[in-house]
């Protein structure tokens, strides 16, 4: 079976030695929630070395900002230091590089709330756990977050029941 866009993006990040956590809809889907998602959201560790590795990978997968694709604006080292979202289009599909999620939670804050998951080809990645995804969406309580909550809560209940 050919790799999907997000698997190719994850492979590039993994092989580039980037430390990151998968968050957002893809994290929910990987945790077993039957939700549709088309982009990949990651939060990288924010130390200088990791951001340099990330920038090399982004360059290799032709990352540009989605907002003006025709202008082909590339992320740079100064921009990546910013905790703001970087909504990118790459040769491996859409990729959002986030500095924080929720109320300012960083890679380090999220790390204890992740699960390691095998995603094929011997690759293991860190994915935000479903309980934290639900908690963050409940906390934010935006229209978009609230819309996703029923499926996420029911999936979490099933997982918890299965582990009892």
């Amino acid at each position, binding site marked *: 079976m050919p790799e999907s*866009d997000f698997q190719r993006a994850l492979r590039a990040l993994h092989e580039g030695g980037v430390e990151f956590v998968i968050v957002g809809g893809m994290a929910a889907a990987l945790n077993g929630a039957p939700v549709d998602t088309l982009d990949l959201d990651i939060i990288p560790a924010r130390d200088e070395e990791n951001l340099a590795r990330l920038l090399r990978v982004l360059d290799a997968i032709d990352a540009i900002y989605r*907002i003006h694709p025709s202008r082909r604006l590339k992320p740079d080292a100064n921009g990546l230091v910013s905790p703001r979202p970087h909504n990118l289009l790459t040769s491996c599909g*859409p990729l959002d590089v986030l500095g924080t999620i929720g109320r300012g939670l960083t890679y380090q804050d999220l790390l204890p709330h992740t699960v390691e998951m095998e995603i094929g080809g011997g690759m293991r990645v860190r994915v935000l756990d479903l309980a934290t995804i639900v908690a963050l969406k409940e906390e934010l309580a935006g229209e978009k977050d609230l819309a996703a909550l029923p499926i996420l809560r029911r999936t979490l209940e099933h997982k918890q029941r299965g582990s009892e």
Partner: protein
Amino acid sequence: MMDEEELTDYSEDGVDLTLIRSFLSLTPAERLDIVQRHANAILAIWKLNAGK
């Protein structure tokens, strides 16, 4: 590099409008192909991690 303010485009309710425009720029067949490959990949990963 542009002003950082111009690098994102979210609606007031938190929807990333750049993603919507990006997918609208594809043909229905391209969208279906992406959705299908994503779904297949996620199902395969569920199987790999089943019971863990």
